[in-house]
């Protein structure tokens, strides 16, 4: 488990290094994810070993958003008098984005004849 976590942290560190040195817009951890994926490709054994630790980390992904969530409570007043319009815009837009993305995905699947 400690070895697995070390590999994950090394990937993140390499990702941060690349983002900083190449001035990328993509955050370090996302680059780290791509690096780990490449590592899995070239050394499939690593994938097998790390899988349980990685899935363990992800099984409570929700928990990791709690500190940032508490942080925004103090800033809710930043919406000011625009609070209600903003909440309406966020809710409708999120529903539309989910609907459009899901319908296009399924529609294109049918067009290109994906067997499911």
């Amino acid at each position: 488990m400690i070895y697995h976590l070390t590999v994950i942290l090394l990937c993140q560190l390499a990702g941060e290094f690349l983002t900083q040195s190449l001035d990328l817009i993509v955050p370090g951890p996302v680059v780290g994810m791509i690096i780990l994926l490449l590592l899995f490709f070239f050394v499939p054994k690593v994938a097998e070993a790390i899988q349980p630790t990685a899935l363990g980390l992800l099984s409570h992904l929700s928990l990791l958003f709690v500190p940032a969530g508490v942080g925004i409570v103090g800033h809710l007043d930043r919406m000011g008098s625009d609070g209600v319009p903003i909440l309406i815009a966020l809710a409708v837009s999120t529903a539309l984005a989910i609907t459009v993305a899901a319908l296009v995905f399924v529609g294109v699947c049918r067009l290109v004849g994906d067997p499911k």
Partner: protein
Amino acid sequence: MTSFPEIWTFLSQEPLMWLTATLLAYAIGDSIFLKSGKRPYVNPVLIAVTLLAVLLWVTDVSYPTYFEGAKFVHFMLGPATVALAAPLYANLGKVRQAAVPMIAALIAGSTTAILSVLGIAYALGVRGEVLLSLAPKSVTAPVALGISEAIGGSPTLTAVLVILTGVMGAVMATPLLNLLGIKDWKARGFAIGVASHGIGTARAFQVNETAGAFAGIGMALNAILTAIIAPIIVLLFF
């Protein structure tokens, strides 16, 4: 013997107190979520955040003091993002097969997310910095803050809007997708990831591993695409 108020004064400034409180609040939220039969509107993040916000308000503890303890949890967001490579690798066959639908859904979903939030807010009278802060609301927080700054929004306000969008997406996705009759886990997960980033992805993992993997890809791809098209859309229309 030290009196209780003195012990409290000491402990309430300690990281241990707030790390424990964060885990405890989440455990309460998660157990309510499980007891409800995993109902989507019983969101463990929302419950934990509400409990902690009330607790901090009642005990008059500042957010920086709280974060001294909570930062250990917050830090794990980075490694967890890297760990998304695991379900992605496990679902690689499905990902390869779905490359074309994914690209189409990404472009359609991402554009809809930006245009609709700006259009609706504008129609309701929102203008200026607040309006621009809305554009990257569907993108994972670290990237969204950068986009917001680049197009003239307020990064702090964008952070608030991003989290709200995540929670909204996590709460509405299941009933909405059921209503649309979409049964494909790939499509369901991908749509949630594009529209509501990490918090949506966390919800997708609670439901199905394939959905979670596709949500993770949707989140990562939308971060990149929005960074490119949000400035263009803002330049064209606003």
